[in-house]
């Protein structure tokens, strides 16, 4: 293809990227550093790092905390836990899938994808119905003669919701790496003295690392900035950074919302750059 034709074909995408990605990003930056009269200010950033409020725990002890740092810390913690749960559940599944017969692989793939065809709100409401104190799960427990569990409105419920939503993004990249892996390498490891566990540790896992890294990235990043799941499944008790941004936006505090989004973005970009650097240097197959 000639260079000019190439440019012409690319043009609509470039315009799209400019209008709907770069310009909005510039606006976020602009709003983040200005006040309501659009004069330069750093006050939103100062507020993010210093604002305090007092919270009262269930035992009645009241405590002064950094509001937004606490929210950010909580978002990070829940996101990391959800990512780890996704990894622990998803890695064995991806391995089993990659070793199954082709037909079974397709069926499993479809089963993993089906929830993604449903609206995110409906999925979250469905989990409310399941996890409520008088919901399906608890009715099942009491039907089996066991004690009911209080799940809704706890961090556990939020984590369950996040894991459910982001699970496919963990499984698919790991699966696609494992499906491509040369089975002869596994045979070679066994031939050279490895039992199943040593084969996993010394050959399968190192070779699947690029998939693990992209799975972790694809789950961690959206789950840090998630909102709504925490409002519905956490009964509003576990405000996350995404909820905070949404709240400020709804309250017409666009500049502070933009500043928070900006901070989150910078942190994620730095984290991703770091991951990319480490991957390229130390992980086989991570250089592309």
């Amino acid at each position, binding site marked *: 293809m000639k260079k000019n034709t190439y440019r012409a074909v690319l043009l609509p995408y470039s315009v799209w990227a400019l209008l709907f990605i770069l310009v909005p990003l510039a606006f976020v930056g602009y709003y983040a550093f200005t006040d309501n009269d659009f004069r330069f200010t750093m006050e939103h950033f100062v507020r993010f790092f210093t604002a305090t409020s007092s919270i009262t725990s269930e035992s009645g002890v009241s405590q002064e905390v950094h509001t937004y740092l606490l929210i950010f810390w909580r978002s990070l913690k829940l996101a990391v836990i959800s990512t780890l749960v996704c990894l622990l559940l998803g890695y064995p599944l991806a391995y089993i899938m990659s070793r199954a017969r082709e037909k079974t692989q397709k069926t499993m793939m479809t089963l993993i994808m089906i929830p993604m065809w449903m609206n995110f709100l409906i999925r979250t409401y469905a989990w409310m119905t399941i996890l409520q104190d008088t919901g399906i799960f608890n009715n099942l427990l009491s039907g089996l003669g066991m004690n009911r569990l209080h799940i809704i409105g706890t961090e556990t419920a939020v984590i369950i919701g996040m894991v459910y939503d982001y699970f496919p993004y963990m499984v698919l990249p790991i699966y696609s790496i494992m499906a491509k892996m*040369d089975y*002869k*390498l596994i*045979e*070679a*490891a*066994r*031939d*050279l*003295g*490895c*039992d199943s566990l*040593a084969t996993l540790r*010394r*050959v399968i896992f*190192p*070779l699947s690392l690029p998939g693990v890294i992209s799975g972790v990235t694809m789950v961690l990043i959206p789950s840090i900035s998630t909102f709504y799941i925490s409002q519905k499944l956490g009964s509003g008790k576990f405000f996350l950074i995404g909820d905070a941004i949404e709240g400020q936006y709804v309250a017409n505090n666009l500049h502070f919302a933009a500043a928070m989004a900006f901070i989150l973005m910078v942190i994620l970009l730095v984290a991703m750059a770091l991951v990319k650097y480490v991957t390229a240097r130390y992980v*086989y*197959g991570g250089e592309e």
Partner: protein
Amino acid sequence: MKKIIELKNISKSFDGEMVLDNISLDIYDNEFITLLGPSGCGKSTTLRMIGGFIQPDQGDVIFLGERINDVPPHKRNVNTVFQKYALFPHLNVFENIAFPLHQKGVPKAEIEEKVNEMLRLVMLPGFAHRRVTNLSGGQQQRVAIARALISHPRVLLLDEPLGALDLKLRKDMQQELKKIQKSTGITFIFVTHDQEEALSMSDTIVVMSEGKIQQIGSPTDIYNEPKNAFVADFIGESNIVDGVMLADYRVRFAGHTFDCLDAGFGKNEPVDVVVRPEDVDIVPAEQGQFQGTVTSVTFMGVHNEIIVDIQGFKWMIQTTESVNEGEFIGLHLDPDAIHIMKKSKYSGTFGDYSSFSSELDELSDPGSEAEA
């Protein structure tokens, strides 16, 4: 000589298809043994069974007198050089070769020493810290051999290891493998579909077809005394014609009665007669035991390869005489040029060169498709 591996009455099917049909084979210590046959003959399956990757449906695998059917690969004192090397791409040359020693927990200094020794053995000193993905096919091959030899297995299994190399490199590696086998004293079990490779490297050749062993013997035995038409055709070029054994040492074929060196057949028993293309002498027509018309002449460098029509059956003859197409020539066979075989199910399926051309030969090369 000590038996190191015995296969006893082994059968194996995949999806209802018989891959190994009741094979028995003894493998001796310190021997270079080759499993030779076209793709799908069961040679790779046999090798994988010795490696422990496949369990037999019936029969026993015996290693130094002990039944090892259920011993997993990592507990067998046997290592494999895989067809496409199967080097670990996330490890460098040193780490690949050291892999089995790390697994055994050998001390670091000893690992270093042994890896360097191996690198010298396969003539790759100085390559320790190269990435395996940057090596040529021949170099990868050497790393794979070093990795398989470093823990000094009793037996080394080689699954068509030279198949991916070009001709010149393959010849060099054949020599080198033979040398390594002699210097280490390890039993090599080598799988190939390439009969020249088998003839030049092996102490013993096992010719296989359709899940059965057709013949076991030294290269000269196999070449000079093929047991049936399949072996005769598969090893080298052969003219295989129908004949009748008139009496001991007397056989009739191609319209003439010949003296031969074979005995012990029934009177007037129908047999297959094998004559190698290089064993036919060309003489003036009137002096020949039998005669034919030259239908094609191909110059091959050292010799001419000619096709001669003898009573409707096309013979291949390799000769240094120069003859012309259409010429009527006489042919002479010495008694030791004639090999008599009992009739088998392969009789009549090989040996006529009427559709022969080098191209056809290549098309039907069993090695052109990889064996599953």
